[in-house]
């Protein structure tokens, strides 16, 4: 059982990276990014395509990819998504849903339907002994540590920097923030740029750990949603814990029957929704 739980926590680290971008965009501008999963898959394919051009190492692929993701996120928000924001959430849902379809088809066209993966080199086989006969893979552990670092980094950014203050202010009251001289369109664009960096990182790790294929997006989006909602909207640590809960639930289900993993995750998600409709760590209103 310990083994199962550890595997679940490691899987949860990956789910946390799937969901932080979603949590960030929703938190700052109440935008639900339906294309989240497909963007993760696109990030994975982009890493697979870039790696051979930069010497084959995934770290180099990341170094190239993450700044590009930042720029793409910024530009997408500035040119398209900002126009969809308003009191009505429907336009942004429709546009990101459309984006999701476009990405799926573009990936299918470019890469065919075959699952592909990114070579992790020596990391793929490495493992660490946690004492006794418990071993964990180096790569899954690295992913969990990265998730922890990203969550802590986001939380610090939000609570201690002037950019974080601007994120919270536009989220609270966009008009009042503009009265202070903030350009909310720019603030939103920086938020999406950061979300896209997290998305690219998630895609890179997904490609390293398992495979990506053009049709994977919706399922990844579902895992991201479940993590965010289990944890409670608007709290990054909540998202982190929500992702771990989902990862462990899936692993436990998988242990009973390989076909039950994902289903068990859904059941736990529904159970949490029933008992705590606002998630485990709902944002406390001031």
């Amino acid at each position, binding site marked *: 059982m310990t083994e199962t739980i550890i595997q679940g926590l490691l899987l949860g680290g990956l789910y946390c990276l799937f969901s932080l971008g979603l949590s960030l965009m929703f938190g700052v501008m109440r935008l639900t990014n339906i294309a989240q999963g497909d963007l993760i898959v696109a990030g994975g394919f982009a890493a697979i395509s870039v790696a051979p051009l930069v010497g084959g190492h995934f770290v180099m692929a990341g170094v190239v990819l993450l700044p590009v993701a930042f720029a793409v996120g910024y530009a997408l928000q500035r040119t398209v998504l900002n126009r969809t924001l308003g009191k009505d959430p429907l336009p942004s849902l429709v546009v990101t849903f459309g984006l999701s379809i476009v990405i799926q088809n573009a990936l299918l066209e470019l890469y065919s339907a075959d699952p592909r993966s990114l070579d992790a080199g020596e990391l793929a086989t490495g493992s660490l002994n946690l004492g006794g006969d418990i071993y964990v893979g180096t790569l899954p552990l690295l992913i969990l540590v990265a998730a922890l670092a990203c969550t802590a980094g986001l939380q610090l950014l939000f609570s201690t920097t002037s950019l974080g203050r601007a994120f919270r*202010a536009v989220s*609270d009251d966009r008009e009042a923030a503009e009265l*202070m*001289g*903030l350009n909310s369109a720019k603030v939103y664009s920086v938020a999406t740029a950061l979300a896209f960096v997290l998305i690219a990182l998630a895609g890179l790790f997904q490609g390293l750990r398992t495979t990506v294929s053009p049709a994977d997006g919706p399922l990844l989006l579902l895992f991201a949603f479940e993590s965010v909602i289990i944890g409670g909207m608007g709290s990054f640590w909540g998202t982190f814990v929500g992702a771990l809960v989902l990862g462990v639930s899936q692993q436990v289900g998988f242990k009973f029957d390989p076909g039950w993993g994902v289903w068990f995750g859904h059941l736990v998600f529904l159970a949490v929704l029933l008992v705590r409709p606002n998630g485990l760590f709902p944002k406390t209103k*001031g």
Partner: protein
Amino acid sequence: MTAPFLQTVGLRAHYGDAQALFGIDFHIGEGETVAVIGANGAGKSTFLKSVTGLVRVAPETVLIDGRPSGGSVPGDIVRQGVALVPEGRRLFPSLSVEENLLMGGYARRPGPWSLQRLYGMFPILKEKRKVPATSLSGGQQQMVAIGRALMSNPRLLLCDEISLGLAPIVIKEIYDALPAIAAEGMSVVIVEQDVMVAQRVSQRLYCFQEGRVSLEGASDGFTREQISQAYFGI
């Protein structure tokens, strides 16, 4: 008379198809305190929103230092030295008292106002600087709202019903602080429902009625009848 710092000329404002202001002529000079009174729905808040860029208006209908500024984004207006204390305060609930004040300084205009100076003026805010702004009492929240506007070092401070919902003693405290705030030549527009308060704190006043100016002149130059007629119409 000094040249007006801010002037509106035939200002009209709309919400969609509904017109809320029908040609407001208004001016305020350096160091002046001007009151705007009027019944609910007369257009007082819309007037302040039009001046600060929250409601879009034609460029030449708002002049700041003689330059057409109507329809500018709110950020440009605050950088020109016009700050609004909005109706209902609109503090940021997820920000602490101090963070709210710092947001007010976002425009980075140079001037006398700083956290230190505000804390000197309202010591209670220093004591509570770490707590969420919206956990304060109504009067203290209003101090934060005023302080936040002052942090932009405005030349003109627009106050929209800062006494709304506050106890009389708190209202008095806030209005008593006003002369000290305006001591360095800052101009102030006070929007008030309480006519007596408005007359007491201002040199000139405007009365709005259904989106038009119904009375204008020296604050102490009107009889009760004149004001109540301008306020309610007949």
